[in-house]
């Protein structure tokens, strides 16, 4: 599969076909474009290892947003003045670019506030007997239907489905995990059945780093006629993802995890599926004819975009995907793969540190969560911060997967295209000192 090109068979020296990690000189040039990476924390250079939560933004993206605001800022899709036309043009070009980045056409990409809103939009659209979609009937959840997720989901791809099931009388089921942090594929045929109406799953886990077997899951969903919903938050920023090749019906991702701004995300899906769905938020910008009694709705994507949209954010996101394209997602993936191997090799050597998730970098992204024996993640994070190392501590909005592995919380280091090997080393060194700090004194 093209998307998983970056993930080399275990044991292979060069992680990716032809693509190589960024070398020192390339990385220096690249890092210079991220002003925040020049920060120091106390006496230490910042080692930002929390990109899975939110990524840093390069000057290219910051400038693009500012340039737009200083030159062309206006409301889109209304007004006949020059600024309104420029703004509309910039906004719709952004849609073309972001959609194209994941292999979709521009009318197949709906702007949302973030990935969470995208998933809620789908869960609501599938659970109301609303009107406006061409043929929502077949997709609507009803009593007796089943929604299937996995045990590693972010709360954003779990709670909306729990709620949808409560609203509709559908039943929620999930596919479990193996002890080494992979999806338990032996459960697939038992859990995904003729009753399954929706299969919603993460492409990559934000806690375990595991990349799920999309091909197998989609194949099974197709066989039983289920709609597929992909949470691509942790894959689109890091891997070369083509949603058409993956053959998923709907997918969501957020700009802020891929060099873009907060406040904007996307729901990208097959045209005929979007066309079948009823609107969820209603109001201005999404209607055709409105009388005092009733309204008709615009086709997708506008049908799902009520109200004034995040225009400057879309413009900034456009620039972000250009930066990613320029770098090449195969090289981004190769770079992160090498860093992931470095992280895993390092943490598995530290006594009293347990990795949640696969201990090999195969089919894995660079989010590495660990539990430090006898030291609470808050305290781990504090010690790391004192060394300038920024990591995430807590349950990372995924309580069930922590519970699955006997933890309530963990410490997560995550890499991105600008991460330097020296930052991984700073993390490993500080982590190795944590237990001593709390035990020795």
């Amino acid at each position, binding site marked *: 599969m093209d998307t998983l090109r970056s993930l080399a068979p275990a044991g292979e020296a060069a992680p990716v076909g032809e693509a190589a990690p960024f070398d020192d000189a390339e990385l220096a040039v690249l890092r210079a474009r991220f002003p925040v990476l020049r920060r120091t924390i*106390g006496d230490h250079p910042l080692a930002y290892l929390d990109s899975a939560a939110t990524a840093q933004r390069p000057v290219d993206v910051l400038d693009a947003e500012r340039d737009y605001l200083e030159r062309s800022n206006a409301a889109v899709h209304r007004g006949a003045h020059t600024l309104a036309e420029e703004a509309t043009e910039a906004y719709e070009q952004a849609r073309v670019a972001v959609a194209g980045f994941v292999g979709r056409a521009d009318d197949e990409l709906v702007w949302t506030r973030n990935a969470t809103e995208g998933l809620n939009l789908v869960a609501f659209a599938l659970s109301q007997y609303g009107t406006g979609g061409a043929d929502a009937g077949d997709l609507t959840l009803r009593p007796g239907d089943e929604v299937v997720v996995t045990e590693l989901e972010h709360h954003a791809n779990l709670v909306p489905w729990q709620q949808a099931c409560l609203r509709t009388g559908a039943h929620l089921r999930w596919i479990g995990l193996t002890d080494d942090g992979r999806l338990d594929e032996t459960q697939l045929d038992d859990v995904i059945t003729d009753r399954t109406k929706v299969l919603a799953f993460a492409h990559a886990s934000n806690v375990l780093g595991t990349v799920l077997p999309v091909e197998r899951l989609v194949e099974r969903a197709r066989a039983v006629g289920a709609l597929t919903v992909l949470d691509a938050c942790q894959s689109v920023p890091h891997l070369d993802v083509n949603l058409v090749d993956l053959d998923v019906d709907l997918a969501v991702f957020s700009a802020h995890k891929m060099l873009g701004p907060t406040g904007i995300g996307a729901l990208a899906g097959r045209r005929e599926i979007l066309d079948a769905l009823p609107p969820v938020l209603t109001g201005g910008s999404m209607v055709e004819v409105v009388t005092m009694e009733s309204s008709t709705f615009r086709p997708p994507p506008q049908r799902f975009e009520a109200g004034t949209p995040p225009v400057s954010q879309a413009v900034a996101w456009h620039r972000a995907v250009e930066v990613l394209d320029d770098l090449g997602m195969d090289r981004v993936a190769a770079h992160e793969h090498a860093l992931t191997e470095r992280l895993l090799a390092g943490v598995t050597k530290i006594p009293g540190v347990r990795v949640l998730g696969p201990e090999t970098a195969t089919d894995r992204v660079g989010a590495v969560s660990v539990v430090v024996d006898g030291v609470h993640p808050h305290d781990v994070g*504090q010690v790391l911060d004192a*060394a300038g190392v920024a990591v995430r501590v807590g349950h990372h909005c995924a309580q069930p997967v922590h519970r699955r592995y006997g933890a309530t919380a963990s410490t997560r280091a995550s890499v991105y295209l600008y991460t330097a090997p020296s930052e991984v080393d700073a993390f490993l060194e500080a982590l190795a000192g944590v237990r001593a700090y709390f035990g020795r004194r």
Partner: protein
Amino acid sequence: MGSLDQLYQQVILDHYREKHGFGMREPGTGTRTAQSHQLNPLCGDEVTVRVALGRTGADDVVQDVSWVGDGCSISLASTSTLHDLVVGETTSEAGALVGAFRAMVRARGAAEPDEELLGDAAAFVGVGRHANRVKCAMLGWTAFEDALKRAVVDGQLSPGGSTVSDDEETA
């Protein structure tokens, strides 16, 4: 690790290891008892504090603070110092101590810690500089404050049994 040692003062690490008053104890005969469970939903830290009030003359006095919890060093050590501080105090004195502790940890590190008043708990002054840790430091104290209020208002009179009121609240 200069800034780190400012936060994790030796006293705090000692209390983290020792945990004074840890473990739930049956209330003594004739005491009025209540307990409170507090949870920090952000990290899953939780603590349950049980207060047993006795009577000395005209005053309600904190006879015991027993507690269990699961959390970071800051939340557990601060509950341990709370135990040392409030046992033996009248309810109004105990309430004032909670107020003083809260004011200190919320002062963004600008407070002058009053060791005379707060004892070991004064060591948590450095928490104020870490906005994300204030909740950790307050967890046990919030539970105590809540349990104290309940014990005063409608605490179960204990014949030595274990009838206690419990409530889940989000800190």
